[in-house]
Structures are given as structure tokens and as C-alpha cells.
């Protein structure tokens, strides 16, 4: 059959098949990643699995078992089907699957369910049939089904907000759906738009693995192993010559390995197997622990925070009136003639920070425990904490004391684009002397930040909020107030120094015209 031929030639070429196979349900990168992983049967880059866990929970199982055969002999304690422990041969169905709301685009965390296209429990659903329509921000998107089967239970009603990864509905998947699957990508490519029920879908979870030239589920293979039978001797009666459990049973019986009368003991065997077939057809992964090795940016964070924990921190909190800053930014933007430049608050905050540091250089220093000395750093290399899809990273702008606000704006945008693309150089992220964290842009009033070793201070800025304030005459006026929290190393800095430094910085922000006094 075409299936087998191509498999033997090129078993793991998954280049573009995902696009045909998965419509709006699985984002391409995750499936391609999953494909790459399955081809090497390794755990590697599980950090990426994080994002894909919701889209393809089955993948996790696949990855956590390096050894295809032995893995199934461990018990998972998973809630499988709700069916009796009959052999698979007796029941024409597979198991229950949870259909999650898959990722519909970067940055979208939740969608509103608008309407269902299937109405009742027990409605038949074909693979790629639209299941429901959701709305995310500006787009209405049809979610299509990954499986062929029947609706078991709706978990949401129209109007509900569903988080990405949450289960939308439970389905009972057809047994036939499974027997049609094998890993051949090219079969998939041909079927676009044609008869879906005969589509061979690649599912990197627990589908029947076609290895060694015989089609059979891992459960069946395991059973065969337990019986000490060679699977190649068993004549398969399933689709495309697939070996089913009853084939093994009848073969074993005919070979006298298992007497027909001891079918009950065989059932016991199969009861154990039922769990595996449950696994092969259903998944209750949502209650399983997920282990993610620490990689990349997260590993760097572990290291630096462990070191930061050794520093005796104290935190100083203050509020800054940003009315002048808001006006300044508006004025910059108004006179802006460069289409590539967008003015925000941060560059002014950075430049004024540098001005304040010139007066209080102790905050721009570095402490060495072994040598028991403090080095006052000559350059103000101000680090900006950035939350990227890859994790927390802190690139720094070098020599801020010599840069103009416009130059800072451009450099900031350069670093940010690199950060988002995960292309920061080691020079960009090292050599920082103080860090700014604008957590307020995401939320929160103020945080208590941890110092970025080997620096001695860090500044967390909360959200700018418009609140009423009293002026000198006792009149109420609206003020844009930002709360800042300065974390400092108490071995080097004391409260008084930090307080004075903060007052100086605050002065430059509240009266930016004073920056001109220092203009050269």
C-alpha cells in the first residue's frame, strides 16, 4: 500500500503536512515542533512544549516515554474511558477526548464562545467539521474538529469566555477514526477537501504505531509481547491488515498458547491492557504533573535569582507625579517627523535616572563580597527588563550619560526588537549597572523587585494612574501618579542615600526642564 511504501522511504518528513491536517485548531509551529520531537523520540526542548501543551496534550505523553514499548507497562492512573473492562474487540468505540480551545494567534489568552455548530449530545462530528465559532478581540474564528466522533458533553455555552487550553467539549471518538491513522504525511497532503472520514491523519500522540512493517496499537503490541508471540505471525483483520486484539487472541488460541476457555484470564490481561487502550484512545492528562526542564532564559533567571537571594534587600517606595512627563511625551510626539520613532515615557525616565546617578554614583556600583570592595561604575549602563515570549531578559543601554533622549529611544527600540526575536547578543545583556523594570505596563501598582546581580539597585515602576491630588491652594486636580519601588543592597546602600537619590530622580521627572540645567 502506498502508506507503507512511503513510510519505509521517508518516515519522518513532516514538512508541510500540518497545514493540511490541522485547520484552526493547532498553530503550525507547535505541531512542527512536535513532529521534530517525535522523529527523535527525545524529550528535548520541552520548554516549547509549554506553549503547545494545550494544543496537543497527547504529545506530552509521547515525549515522556522514550521507550515506546516499555512505557505502556507503567501504570498511569489516568481516568480513561468510562467503559467496562471489555476487550477492545467487543466495543466499537474508542475513548473520550477533551477538545481544548487551541491557540488562535500569539498573545491571545482567551476567546468568547459565540455559537456552537453542533447542537446536541450524540451529534455526529466529522474531522475538520466546524465545531463552534469563537471571538478573540477582533476576529471571529471557526474552530474545526480534530476528531471524528460524537459529542459527549458541552462544557461551555455561548457567551462564556474560554481560556486558551480550556476544554470546550468532550467527544467520544470513533474507533474507526483511529484505525485510519498512520504516520504517512503524503497521504494527508492529497486529501485536502476530499472525503474526510478516510483521511489518514498524523497524530503524534498515541496512534497506532506502524513500526516493523506491521500495523497495530502499542497496547496490542504489548499484549503480543506478554504472550511471547511474534506479531509478524499474526494475521491482521483490521483495516489495511491491522492486527487487532482478537487477531492475537485467535492466533494464540490456535497456537495453543492460550486456551479459548481461559478467555477470562486473557480478559484479565486485557483489563490491564484496557488501561493502555484507554491511553491510546482517551486522555485525562489534565490531572497529571507536567515536568519542564529549565532552559534558556528561565535557566538564566534561576541562576541570577539564586544569587540575588543572598543579597540583603531593602525596598524604598515613593510616588512620582508624571503630569509633566505626559505633557513632554505629547510634545515630542507632536513634533516627531520620523516615522520610525515612537515616543514613550521610558527614554525620559532613563535619561533622568542617569542624571540622578551622576549625583549619587553609589547606586550605579558593583559590590564584591570576596574583595570587600565597592566599585563605582563609570558608565551608566541602564538595563531594561523585558518580558518576551521566551522569558524575562534584561538588555542594557550602554553609556546613557552620553546619549540624548532621542538616541535612547532608538536604542531602546533596537534592543526590544532583538529581544522579541530572541536575537540579543551577549554584549547586549551583560555589563549592566542598574536595572529598570516597567512592570506597571503589564499591571500592578508597584512590585518589590529583586536585584540583578552584580548590581546594587533595581527600580520597579508601577502603572501610571490618574488620581485626584491637592495642590498648594487646597484645590483638587487630576494627577498621573506612578509608584516606584527601589530595591537596594543594604551592604552598600542605606535608606538615606536611596531616599535622596529618589528625590533627585523624582525632581527631574516632575520638572523635566531642570534637565536643561545639566545640558552640555
Amino acid at each position, binding site marked *: 500500500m502506498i502508506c507503507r511504501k512511503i513510510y519505509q522511504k521517508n518516515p519522518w518528513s513532516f514538512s508541510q503536512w500540518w497545514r493540511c491536517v490541522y485547520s484552526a485548531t493547532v498553530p503550525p509551529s507547535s505541531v512542527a515542533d512536535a513532529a521534530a520531537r517525535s522523529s527523535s523520540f527525545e524529550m528535548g526542548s520541552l520548554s516549547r512544549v509549554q506553549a503547545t501543551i494545550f494544543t496537543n496534550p497527547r504529545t506530552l505523553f509521547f515525549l515522556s516515554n522514550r521507550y515506546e514499548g516499555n512505557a505502556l507497562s507503567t501504570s498511569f492512573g489516568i481516568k480513561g474511558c468510562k467503559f467496562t473492562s471489555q476487550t477492545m474487540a467487543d466495543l466499537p468505540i474508542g475513548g473520550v477526548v477533551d477538545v481544548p480551545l487551541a491557540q*488562535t494567534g500569539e*498573545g491571545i489568552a482567551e476567546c468568547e464562545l459565540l455559537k456552537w455548530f453542533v447542537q446536541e449530545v450524540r451529534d455526529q462530528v466529522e474531522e475538520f467539521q466546524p465545531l463552534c465559532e469563537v471571538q478573540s478581540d*477582533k*476576529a471571529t474564528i471557526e474552530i474545526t474538529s480534530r476528531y471524528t466522533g460524537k459529542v459527549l458533553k458541552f462544557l461551555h455555552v455561548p457567551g462564556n469566555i474560554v481560556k486558551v487550553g480550556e476544554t470546550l467539549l468532550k467527544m467520544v471518538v470513533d474507533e474507526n477514526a483511529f484505525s485510519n491513522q498512520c504516520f504517512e504525511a503524503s497521504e494527508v497532503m492529497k486529501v485536502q477537501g476530499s472525503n474526510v472520514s478516510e483521511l489518514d491523519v498524523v497524530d503524534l500522540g498515541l496512534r497506532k504505531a506502524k513500526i516493523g512493517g506491521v500495523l497495530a496499537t502499542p497496547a496490542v503490541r504489548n499484549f503480543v509481547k506478554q504472550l511471547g508471540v511474534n506479531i509478524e505471525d499474526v494475521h491482521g483483520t483490521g483495516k489495511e491488515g491491522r492486527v487487532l486484539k482478537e487477531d492475537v487472541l485467535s492466533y494464540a488460541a490456535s497456537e495453543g498458547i492460550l486456551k479459548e476457555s481461559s478467555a477470562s484470564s486473557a480478559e484479565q490481561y486485557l483489563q490491564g491492557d484496557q488501561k493502555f487502550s484507554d491511553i491510546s484512545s482517551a486522555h485525562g492528562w489534565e490531572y497529571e504533573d507536567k515536568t519542564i526542564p529549565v532552559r534558556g532564559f528561565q535557566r538564566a533567571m534561576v541562576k541570577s535569582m539564586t544569587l540575588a537571594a543572598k543579597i540583603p534587600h531593602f525596598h524604598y517606595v515613593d510616588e512620582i507625579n508624571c503630569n509633566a512627563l505626559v505633557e513632554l511625551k505629547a510634545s515630542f510626539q507632536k513634533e*516627531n517627523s520620523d516615522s520610525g520613532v515612537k515616543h514613550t515615557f521610558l527614554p525620559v525616565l532613563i535619561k533622568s535616572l542617569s542624571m540622578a546617578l551622576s549625583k549619587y554614583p553609589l547606586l550605579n556600583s558593583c559590590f564584591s563580597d570576596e574583595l570587600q570592595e565597592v566599585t563605582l561604575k563609570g558608565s551608566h549602563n541602564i538595563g531594561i527588563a523585558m518580558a518576551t515570549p521566551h522569558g524575562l531578559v534584561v538588555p542594557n543601554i550602554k553609556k546613557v550619560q552620553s546619549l540624548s533622549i532621542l538616541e535612547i529611544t532608538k536604542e531602546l527600540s533596537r534592543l526590544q526588537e532583538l529581544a522579541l526575536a530572541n536575537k540579543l547578543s551577549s554584549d547586549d545583556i551583560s555589563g549592566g549597572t542598574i536595572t529598570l523594570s516597567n512592570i506597571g505596563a503589564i499591571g500592578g501598582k508597584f512590585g518589590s523587585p529583586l536585584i540583578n546581580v552584580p548590581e546594587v539597585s533595581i527600580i520597579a515602576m508601577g502603572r501610571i494612574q490618574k488620581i485626584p491630588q491637592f495642590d498648594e491652594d487646597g484645590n483638587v486636580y487630576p494627577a498621573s501618579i506612578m509608584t516606584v519601588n527601589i530595591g537596594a543592597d543594604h551592604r552598600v546602600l542605606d535608606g538615606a542615600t536611596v531616599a535622596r537619590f529618589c528625590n533627585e530622580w523624582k525632581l527631574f521627572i516632575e520638572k523635566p526642564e531642570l534637565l536643561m540645567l545639566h545640558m552640555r
Partner: protein
Amino acid sequence: MAVSQTRNLGLPLINLLRLKGVPILQQLHLEERLLRTSSDNWCIINDGTIDPTIVMGISGKPQELLEIESILRDDIPVIRRFTGGGTVIVDQGTIFVTFICNKDAVPGLQSYPQPIMSWSSLLYKKVFQGIEISGFARMIDYASCTAVVLSDYVLGDRKFGGNAQSITKNRWVHHTSFLWDYEISNMGYLKLPKRAPEYRQARDHLEFICRMKDYISRSSFIDRTIEAVGSEFLLRSAELEDAHCTLGSKFEPSSRLLRKQELGEAIFKSLTASQS
């Protein structure tokens, strides 16, 4: 002639439908019909609509988004469209550009909201190329140093075009209403939305939007848009009759005009909610 033909080889075909002053409800019905029953790619440009009309997204709640009493008093029609997104008020100063494409029409484009917006913003960037405009760029929120999702078309930090999409199994629609010009008084019918992109920063409408006419002429915008589309597709001029010909007979569009009664009920809902 031969040269231009060679250049166009391999580009996907798109039907270009130019309209002027077509009522927005009719346009929405047409778009939804083409999305669900046609298998061609379409680009619809509607140069202004006749009466000022409010168009809400598919799940917009009137009591939260609209000043219903003024709307009822002034008899402004309110439509709920079939795509997601926010609320706009459109009139003769609005230019509509809609793309209805097959999933694989644009090579390499994934049919999710962000990639589609990304593609269209590149297309419109071509339209504004060379014109002295500040900040027509990807919506990266520099203050937070994270990329926010692409949402609106902005000049500087002011919105000049709102857009929405609908993505089905094999096709998608991405439509935009461009504020070439607007009436200040009309903006008074819209409330400040609860859900707004970060860059809006609680600005009210007049401080948040801007007029495209300050930068480019109407005909120039439309011509340049057509040119930009022509660089990615093979254009085929279509007429309104062509659009209707390809359509199936049994189709019920879901964009609809809200009845006065519904708007009245919405006021009631908001009043009782505030009382409880």
C-alpha cells in the same frame, strides 16, 4: 505588455469590486455572502456610505458601547456585523476596504488573526510610503517592552482605521473602515469602550482618532491601495452584478440592523443593572 504579463504570472487572482456610497448593511451582507458561498478572492472598496451608521461587532453590548438615548433621539441606525471587534460610526467620510480570501491565497500566510493583520499592515504601509507620516508602524508598546497584539492602524498614536476579521475553515475576511474624514458630533454617540488596547490610555474618541485627509487625498488613497493590492494579486475588475451571480441562493446573512425596541431594552437593562 509582455513584461507586465510575465510579472503577473503566478500571482493569485483577486476580483476588485469598486463601490461608492453603498449602504454599509448592504456591503456587510455582500461580504458575508462572498465569504461563505464564493471560492474566489475579493477586494471590495466602498468609497463612503450614505447615512451615518453605527456598526458594532458581533458581540457588542449596546448599553456598554453606545449613548443609546441620543441614538434613538436622532434616529441613527445601529448594525451588528458578523465579524468581531469594536464599534465604529461610519458615514460619507469613511472609506471601506475589505479582503475576502481563500486560506491559501497569499502564499505562506497562516489564517490566524495576527498574521492576517500583519500582512494587511504591510500592504497599507506600501500605500503610505513616501508620505510624511509619523509612526505608521507595528504596534509595539515600547513602554512595556512587550509586543502587544496588532490591533489598529495608527498614525503616530492615533487611530485612523478600525478593522475586524472572520476566519472560517477555508477562507477569511479582513475588513477595515478608514477615517478619511469624520464629524466630531458623530463621535458623541459612542461611549468609551471597556476593553481598549493599551496605547489608547483612556483617551476619549477625539483625542484618540485622526483624519486621514490631513495626509492624503481620497482618490490618492484608493488608487494607491489598488496599486498595492495589484502588487500581490492579479487584479480583475468586477461589478456588483458579478458578485451576485456567483452566489448561492440559500444564504441568510447574519449582520443585521438592531430594532429600536432592542435598543430600548438595552437602556432598560443598563438602568436596572445600575440600580441593583
